[in-house]
């Protein structure tokens, strides 16, 4: 049973964690204690900050004096950040190995989030930590990319239900490297309707790179990086994690975005509800007082009923399931042939597909999809 003191303590920890996430954002209303935290409060903050991967911003807040701390607390935060940084360098090393192998196989790849955002959008990449590697490849290359990662000894978490599913419908594939690190291969940003509506060619339209160990490594251009952060914040974990929210604020407030291009892409992908939710959540959560054209638009935006339903499959407790996303994905697919292929893959996955839990998810997805009429166009 959580006591009222416990609730107050949790609320205080949440507030402090958000202040850490917002540290350094001009116009963010951060609140800090006047004295170093007591041991119990410090433990809670460290646990929360580590869970959110914000130790880079924590050491910045401590170093600037914003968050008062004892020497022991300073040392502990410093040590935690140091360990995370060591992990990040290991990840970047592995990423380069994978990128070299993909390149040798003729597969072009872009780094999503993580290393790319750290180097391109933060003044010090040590502020932006990450625990896995996300790589985007073209739909036509994904089967080859899967072979490359498998050839490197990486273990795919669940195979595609039928040949061609990754290339046509899937978000991508998740792997675990022999080192235990996770690699996410992406065809698109997310599974479900918003992933399918994304025009994948737009992600490859403008070249962008960052330098990693002397090499030019592909990344999304800044507008696509911003939009990807929106997808990540709005459609990812529940509740939305603070790192993608910080990414949104970091990029949007840097005045480097071509907002007309953001607008064009957003509308083309039917992603207005995603961006509106992401920016609104970010501005509220990080308590950013600066008003921008996009934050004003986001606050006023009202999604249409269809869009609300699509958002619900990602964010609602009772609607956010693999089955719900699959049903919504069906409606997002253009044409009867695509929908038939999608349903066929669900109905008759190949032998050896997935784990027991994976098969159960697909069975539920198929049952849910079978309850709606898949052959009629759904108005949006």
């Amino acid at each position: 049973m959580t006591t009222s003191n416990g609730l107050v303590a949790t609320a205080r920890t949440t507030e402090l964690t958000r202040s850490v996430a917002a540290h350094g954002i001009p116009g963010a209303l951060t609140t800090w204690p006047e004295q170093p935290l007591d041991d119990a409060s410090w433990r809670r903050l460290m646990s929360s900050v580590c869970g959110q991967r914000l130790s880079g911003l924590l050491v910045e807040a401590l170093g600037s004096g914003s968050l008062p701390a004892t020497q022991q607390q300073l040392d502990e935060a410093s040590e935690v950040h140091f360990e995370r940084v060591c992990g990040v360098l290991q990840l970047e090393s592995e990423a380069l190995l994978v990128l070299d192998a993909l390149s040798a196989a003729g597969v072009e790849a872009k780094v999503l989030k993580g290393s790319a955002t750290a180097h391109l959008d933060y003044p010090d990449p040590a502020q932006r930590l990450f625990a896995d590697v996300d790589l985007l490849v073209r739909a036509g290359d994904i089967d080859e990319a899967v072979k490359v990662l498998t050839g490197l000894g990486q273990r795919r978490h669940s195979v595609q239900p039928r040949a061609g599913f990754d290339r046509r419908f899937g978000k991508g594939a998740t792997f675990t490297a022999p080192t235990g690190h996770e690699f996410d291969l992406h065809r698109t940003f997310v599974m479900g309707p918003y992933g399918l509506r994304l025009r994948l060619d737009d992600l490859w339209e403008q070249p962008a790179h960052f330098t990693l160990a002397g090499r030019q490594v592909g990344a999304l251009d800044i507008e696509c990086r911003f939009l990807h952060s929106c997808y990540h914040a709005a459609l990812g974990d529940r509740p939305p994690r603070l790192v993608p929210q910080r990414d949104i604020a970091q990029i949007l407030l840097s005045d480097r975005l071509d907002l007309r291009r953001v607008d064009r892409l957003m509308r083309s992908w039917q992603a207005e509800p995603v961006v509106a939710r992401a920016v609104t959540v970010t501005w509220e959560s990080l308590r950013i007082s600066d008003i921008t054209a996009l934050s004003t638009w986001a606050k006023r935006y009202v999604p249409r009923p269809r869009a609300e339903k699509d958002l619900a499959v990602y964010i609602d407790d009772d609607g956010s399931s693999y089955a719900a996303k699959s049903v919504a994905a069906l409606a997002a697919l253009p044409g009867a042939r695509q929908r038939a292929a999608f349903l066929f893959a669900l109905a008759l996955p190949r032998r050896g597909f997935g784990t027991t839990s994976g098969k159960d998810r697909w069975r539920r997805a198929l049952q849910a999809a079978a309850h709606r009429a898949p052959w009629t166009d759904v108005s949006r």
Partner: protein
Amino acid sequence: MAAMTEPSPRWERSPYVLWRRSGRRIVLKLPDRDELVILDRSGVELWDELTGPVTVLQVAEVLGVRFGVDPELVAADIVPVLADLEARDLVHRWPA
């Protein structure tokens, strides 16, 4: 006749290094090696000055002014550090 000054080699960070700053330390790693190298204190100060080809004397003069120490003493301290970093392929030496 004035004695000719011997030209000095110039030093800079290897572009092939992955690195991050963490508090008062800097962590370095080459992608194809498992080793992590940690710099602290004067090592960090030295790394920060190696953004472009510089001589030992140039670095020593900057750090000498910053810390109020005779540049010759500073130079004597940083030469072995540079040698160690070079042996680990973390810095590049341009011949004199």
